[in-house]
């Protein structure tokens, strides 16, 4: 009896909350649209190219206007990996050579270089086209995960050792902070871009936007390394008690 009633009651409760969610949100948006005065989105879209050198306004916000948020979220990923490592212990690859079929492996090995190309493109063009460090980094992590899934954990660990991933992650994280400090060294403020005198280049070209491409690259590397090591921690078995 109770087992039947509880989900239904919870469902009704959730739907009520959702209705409230909808009403409140619509009320908030109506309030906002009724408000006159300069809109923040116009501020961004009209001046971001001149101010940051990035054509992609979202990237401009992420990597320049609100780069401090990005540092925070990069730290969240870093911390998540550290916490997963602390909870799960040192991973050990499974003994069993579970791999995909031969055909898939052959196909993958010829397509993999292309797979590598795509994330790098996304990262490098983060400031001029849709995409950026996070998106590219996640794709890059998928690549590593794919290697593990297709060729088995031991092989994957050989190609991309965990230690390397971790080093890349730590290095990229420190690099982020270092780029931020560069702004201070240049006499502007933390994570300053053009204000610190970095060259803006021609907006729309690959080498433009001051430190934005650098930040994109660092964030991409960090996210890629972080997510793929997360996969390894989650998939690997714990070194059994006897080993300790």
């Amino acid at each position, binding site marked *: 009896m109770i087992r039947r009633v509880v989900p239904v009651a919870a469902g009704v409760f959730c739907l009520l909350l959702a209705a409230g*969610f909808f009403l409140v949100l619509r009320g908030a948006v109506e309030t906002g649209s009724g408000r006159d005065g300069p809109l923040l989105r116009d501020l961004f879209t009209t001046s971001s190219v001149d101010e940051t050198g990035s054509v992609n306004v979202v990237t401009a916000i992420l990597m320049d206007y609100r780069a401090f948020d990005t540092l925070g979220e990069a730290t969240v990923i870093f911390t998540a990996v550290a916490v*997963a490592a602390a909870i799960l212990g040192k991973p050990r690859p499974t003994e069993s050579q579970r791999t995909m079929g031969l055909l898939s492996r052959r196909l993958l090995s010829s397509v993999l270089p292309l797979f590598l190309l795509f994330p790098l493109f996304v990262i490098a063009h983060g400031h001029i086209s*849709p995409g950026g460090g996070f998106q590219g980094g996640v794709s890059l992590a998928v690549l590593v995960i794919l290697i593990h899934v297709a060729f088995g954990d031991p092989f994957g660990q050989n190609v991309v050792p965990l230690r390397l991933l971790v080093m890349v992650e730590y290095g990229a994280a420190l690099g982020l902070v270092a780029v931020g400090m560069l702004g201070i060294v240049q006499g502007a403020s933390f994570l300053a871009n053009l204000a610190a005198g970095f060259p803006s280049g021609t907006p729309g070209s690959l080498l433009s936007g001051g430190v934005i491409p650098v930040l994109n690259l660092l964030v991409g590397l960090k996210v890629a390394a972080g997510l793929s090591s997360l996969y390894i921690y989650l998939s690997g078995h714990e070194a059994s008690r006897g080993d300790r």
Partner: protein
Amino acid sequence: MQNAAFVAAALVFAIGLHGMLTRRNMIRICISISVMESSLVMALVAVAYVPGGSAPIVSDGQTMFVDPLPHALALTAIVIGAGILAIALALTVAMYRHYGTTDVLAVFGKTREGQ
């Protein structure tokens, strides 16, 4: 258009919350947490919507853009959600190793005895 997106966000929120409240499998709870957070991301994106606006990548001839800030916030929120999801899954794996089950109530019962 915007209202439809809000309704969708609200429904996804209800689904995630319902899963969080009623599921006993920890992996499903993790998924529910993730679904619930996606509903907020959907709402963020819907808030950014401007009728007739295009993606906020400045190029010639474009003057109407959707609001870029919520997009940036949504990206950040997604990454944070991913971090939290990763930890939740790691904890699930750890508990599965200890108890051999992913039933959250069973795990709770066992820790009560252990205390």
